[in-house]
């Protein structure tokens, strides 16, 4: 009975996740699909072809988007790892308050935050630049990063770091050889989350980029709004594919980095053992 229930739940959940994807997939190649018909009436690869046409605006904006998201990811990780560590491990007055305060960008609407920062960015000459867009994307990403790393550090504590120091590792060595490998799952989940948050920003990009910085969502949204379903679906398809791909690549890269960094000794001894 219970097995059946969980089986049914699995099917329902899969359908809720997969059906919309299937719809997007179908729509991306459908020119017309009038109401009473059950199957699409006219198929075409025009939408996808347009996006992948060499030198197309879509392709260009895709590269811009990926570049911005990557930098946002690196910068935000750089801010939120130490931040999360401080909140997760160290004791200091006002900690509880800061823990909540850090989540402010989630509570206050991005419009309010963006408007406030825009003024400053104009003065600094950061509006209409890719740097400005990159910096503003950090704002909505920080709460997620800090939250994840706070939890991770609360879980792992600083015991391994203590051990590293006792064995003669300096602060930087401890960070590279012990802290980073320990929080690897956190880097993976926070990193991909930040990437996707930045990758899907529309309003903040529009506000600070002023239309000059063309990211992928910036091109995509007008199609959705104007009701060009085929183009909107094609863009969505690419959007989802890139986000998934980014996740996979981040994971692969992390794995490679760690096997290189910590495993030299491990691989050596492993080989030795196999031989003997």
């Amino acid at each position, binding site marked *: 009975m219970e097995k059946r229930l969980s089986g049914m739940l699995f099917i329902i959940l899969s359908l809720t996740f997969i059906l919309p994807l299937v719809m997007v997939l179908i729509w991306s190649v459908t020119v017309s699909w009038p109401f009473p018909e059950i199957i699409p009436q006219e198929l075409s690869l025009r939408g996808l072809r347009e996006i992948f046409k060499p030198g197309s605006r879509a392709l260009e904006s895709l590269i811009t988007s990926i570049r911005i998201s990557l930098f946002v990811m690196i910068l935000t990780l750089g801010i939120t790892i130490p931040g999360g560590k401080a909140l997760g491990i160290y004791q200091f007055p006002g900690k509880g308050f800061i823990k909540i305060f850090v989540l402010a960008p989630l509570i206050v609407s991005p419009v309010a935050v963006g408007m406030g920062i825009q003024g400053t960015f104009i003065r600094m000459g950061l509006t209409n630049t890719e740097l400005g867009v990159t910096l503003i994307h950090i704002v909505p990403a920080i709460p997620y990063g800090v939250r994840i790393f706070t939890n991770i550090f609360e879980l792992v504590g600083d015991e391994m770091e203590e051990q590293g120091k006792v064995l003669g590792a300096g602060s930087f060595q401890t960070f590279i050889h012990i802290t980073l490998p320990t929080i690897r799952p956190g880097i993976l989940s926070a990193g991909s989350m930040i990437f996707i948050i930045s990758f899907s920003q529309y309003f903040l990009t529009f506000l600070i980029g002023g239309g000059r910085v063309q990211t992928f969502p910036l091109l995509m949204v007008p199609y959705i709004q104007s009701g060009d379903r085929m183009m909107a679906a094609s863009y969505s398809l690419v959007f989802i594919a890139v986000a998934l791909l980014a996740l996979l690549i981040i994971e692969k890269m992390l794995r490679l980095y760690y096997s290189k960094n910590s495993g030299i000794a491990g691989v050596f001894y492993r080989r030795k053992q196999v031989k*003997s």
Partner: protein
Amino acid sequence: MKEVYLQDISKKYGKEETIKNLTLKVNKGEMISLLGPSGCGKTTTLKIIAGLVAADQGKVFIDGLAVDHLPTQKRGAVIVFQDHRLFPHMTVGGNIEFGLRMQRVPKEIRRKKVQEMLKFVGLQDHGGKFPGEISGGQKQRVAIARGLIVSPKVLLLDEPFSNLDQRLKEEMRNFIVDIQRKLKITTILVSHDKEDSLVTSSKIGVMFDGELKQYGTPEELYETPKTLEIARFFGEVNEIPIEKIDDVWVYTVLGIFPKIRALQTIEKSSKLLLRPEALVLSKEDKEAYGDRGVDGKIMNRIYAGEKTYYEFDVKGFRGKASVMGKGLWQIGDSVRVSTSEESMIVCE
């Protein structure tokens, strides 16, 4: 020559005084232990020596140098923690190699040294395994090997024998004593188990509530503890009521004893203690024991294999004696209880 010297160390966490005016000297090549119930500040003391915790007051000297301003990694004091803390993302070999890697020792030398160390601790076949793949005792060895390979000036062992079963515990004790004798490494061991301390250390410091109550050889602590608390920590004691003291004699419920040996310093406020094994039970035989003993009655018998405990009553005083083997008496039997001033403990 003293290798580690703690001078008047104090540490507070909030309002709670974890360590109070601790002064401790450890000679080079010596193995001592800090003994006390959990929460008495032993582990904090280790962390202060290693520089993981800063003392509020006092100075730490290692090898004659004040190290208070030095960060942990430059002090040359390695802690082996109770929970081993092996790096899970490195193999056993990688864990042992870690300290050398941090010192940027060339790869070839590193590998040679790691192989030697693996052999030294008897784990030559386990270098390629990950910490999750070896047993608790092996983890302990890896943790110790990892500390030893950096040739620390002082090795700090935090409860190395807890979490181990009895057989493994004895094996580990021998292992540590053996290594310490071979390498002559200055070692401070922290434990809550009196036996661990007695068996392994040349000196023991007993800590209660953040204070070092007594520091001396195992014999000194067992035979001449300064307080009732310390005496109790090392095993059961009978507190013998004192009836009267004059210039020559001490009158107790167990008889009259001359004021010699330990009894020389006795005062009215002192406590007179006797370990169960210092009480001799015999048949009511005045010829063999003279008039030294007093008559009593067996109230309870507790059989513990190699010895048997007897609880007896002498004029309302309830005492406990132990005899080797299973003993001759049953509950209710009359018995003669005797002792001598030689085995008496006088303390505050």
